[in-house]
């Protein structure tokens, strides 16, 4: 008699399909960028939307299955579930930006993050896809709020990292007298970079606060400098530096693009690096 688990449930099969759909959307965006064929662009957006719908359905299915088993919990409680949510949030935020800025080329730089995140759920080390009952420490609404806010924030930072890469690429070419015409204007890229950080920073702040509240309820201490907490603070400090550099010192373009990329590297380290390389309290996810 060991921990009851349920594997190969409907939700993981949906994610399996969604991985392929995300891959297809990524390829379509790659094709769209140099050729600017309108039909390809629209198809790319539709495929991305379908993939996003599949991931949404998968999360709902997972919550329903877990409730049926009487374990009832929202699907935000382990590495697998957070990664699926991450891949969901990146596409959500990206599609909003695509719609707001009427620009599809960004998809080529953001969709790959979503695809990699989703594909990672099947190949990443130590990822358990089974549905399991929650141990008592994880039975907390603060945990749900914590995961949702953190990962929406991380998704916004993924977008800012994507456009920063585009910025550097375009700036690098134009310094050599070449214009990469199919990439958006440098000014637009710079603005989207800032706007995504403006969305991501309050979400990360909320994520850290809800995490502290959870820790306070579960372990009696809102902050204990464990590696995960410390790395989330490091990430937060980098983006705080970004905001001051950009807003108050007038840094623009390359310098803030580089800061964004460093910030997202810190996000990835907080999320995955800490678990793989350092052990701490958060070893579950």
């Amino acid at each position, binding site marked *: *008699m*060991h*921990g*009851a688990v349920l594997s190969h449930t409907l939700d993981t099969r949906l994610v399996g399909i969604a991985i392929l759909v995300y891959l297809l959307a990524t390829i379509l965006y790659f094709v769209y960028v140099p050729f600017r064929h309108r039909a390809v662009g629209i198809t790319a957006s539709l495929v991305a939307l379908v993939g996003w719908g599949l991931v949404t359905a998968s999360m709902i299915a997972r919550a329903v299955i877990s409730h049926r088993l*009487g*374990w009832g919990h929202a699907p935000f409680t382990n590495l697998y579930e957070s990664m699926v949510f991450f891949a969901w949030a990146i596409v959500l935020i990206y599609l909003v930006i695509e719609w707001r800025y009427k620009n599809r080329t960004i998809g080529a730089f953001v969709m790959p993050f979503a695809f990699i995140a989703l594909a990672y759920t099947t190949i990443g080390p130590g990822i358990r896809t089974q549905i*399991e*009952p929650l*141990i*008592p*420490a994880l*039975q*907390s609404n603060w945990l749900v709020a914590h995961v949702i806010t953190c990962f929406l924030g991380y998704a916004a930072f993924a977008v800012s990292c994507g456009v920063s890469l585009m910025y550097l690429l375009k700036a690098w070419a134009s310094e050599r007298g070449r214009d990469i015409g199919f990439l958006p204007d440098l000014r637009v890229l710079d*603005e989207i970079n800032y706007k995504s950080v*403006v969305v991501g*920073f*309050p979400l990360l*702040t*909320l994520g850290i*606060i809800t995490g*502290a*509240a959870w820790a*306070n*309820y*579960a*372990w*009696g*201490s*809102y*902050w204990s*400098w464990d*590696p995960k907490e*410390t*790395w989330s*603070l*490091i990430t937060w*400090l*980098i983006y*705080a*530096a970004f905001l*001051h*550099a950009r807003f*108050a*010192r007038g840094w623009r373009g390359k310098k803030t693009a580089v800061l964004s990329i460093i910030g997202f590297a*810190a996000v990835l380290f907080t999320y995955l690096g*800490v678990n793989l390389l*350092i052990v701490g309290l958060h070893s579950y996810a």
Partner: protein
Amino acid sequence: MLKDGHGIWGKLWRFFTSLKLTISLLIILAITSISGTLILQRGDPHQYIEAYGEAGYKLIKMLGLYDVYHSWWFLMLISILVVNIVVCSIDRFPRAWRYIKAPLRYPPLGLLKEMRPQETLKTKYPLKEVTEKVKEVLHSKGYRVEMLMEEGVGRVFGQRGVINRMGVYVTHLSVLTILIGGLIGGIWGFTGGMTIVEGESSRNVSIFGTHKVITLPFDVRCDAFRVSYYPGTNTPKEYRSTITILEHGRPVLTKDIRVNHPLTYRGIKFYQASYGTISNLEGTLTLKVIPRSGEGFVVHVGAGKVSPLKDGYTLKLVAFYPDLVVGEGNQPMNRSDQLRNPAALLEVEKGGRPLYRSWVFAYFPEVHSVEGVPFRFRYISFKGLQYTGLQVSKDPGVWIVWLGCTLMVVGLAFSFFLSHRRVWVYIEDKGKRRHVLVAGNTNRSHGAFLLHFEELIKSLKRALAPGKP
């Protein structure tokens, strides 16, 4: 003013109002914080000497790297950041406050004409009526509106989101608030643990990371401790301790503590942290007995005690292990006091003479050390004397930290999701017609404001179009 001074104070002031300092501090804090995630924190000296050698340990000790986040240099960096925030706010706040206290309502016409975006409309309505209509339109767009009638001129001023100007000050204040809350907790708070056996009480808390023991001004009794499992699994669903607080020996409060549901009494919080079973002293093992012939039956046997089976056989519980592992030299031993891998060593006797010994494993029912014997056994349950482990903490600063967190969220919302939008309208009598000059300004999200301004102009045009009742 200090900031214009040339002396040492002027220099210092400018140093601490500099945003270069802020950015450098934030980056330095980020980089130095990494060290504490790579080097063991609050370890024993021999652990550092093993890992880094004597010289390495000396360096770690000198730089406080064994406890980075409480080291003198880390606290100094935070102190500089605090001075930076305070000085910077004192320096800038008065200018921001003016937007609220004394807004620029009616700037001179020359200044108005330089503002962008800007638009001029023409209408035939009388001056007073135009001014009223403009006021109404701005009001309907969410502006706080004021108007002023002068000789041949009507003026309207509308603004919204002025609180945005306070956002950064609220955010910066929140950082200070959280740090103060943390400081108070660090000075007057404590975190420790206590273990209480079921039915007993205690008032001693061992403080973590030290050898200190704090005596509480009241007693804490553990009435019962239970673990429940998800049906059909051995995944724990709930740990629950029933706790009674006693003042001068009299019970005053009884409450269940669960993980994520602590008990607070007189500012001290009690959290469910651990538990265990005291197996060698007391406790009863329940087994299913499967005889070689005949019906199976259930038997209870106490630790070290003997229970009758049938046909004159008796059963003795030699040893019970709540969490069995095989240790050095193949010796069975306990990994923990929790029922994670229960195992029992049994002895079957007849007429007081031992016949054979047999192991029973809760999770490996088919494993038997002896075959072809009169009785086989299946583990059903073990009810031992349990103890609960509580984490006990007192943090008088925690509510200040939550206040700071609330301020931070509010401040960020003010700064990021509002913008201070202002619209000035100058309406001039020009013979038969009125010229309506509309100028706007915002402090962030200029693109969105331009669209908004276009909408506004359209609404004004509609309101001022001829023939409208």
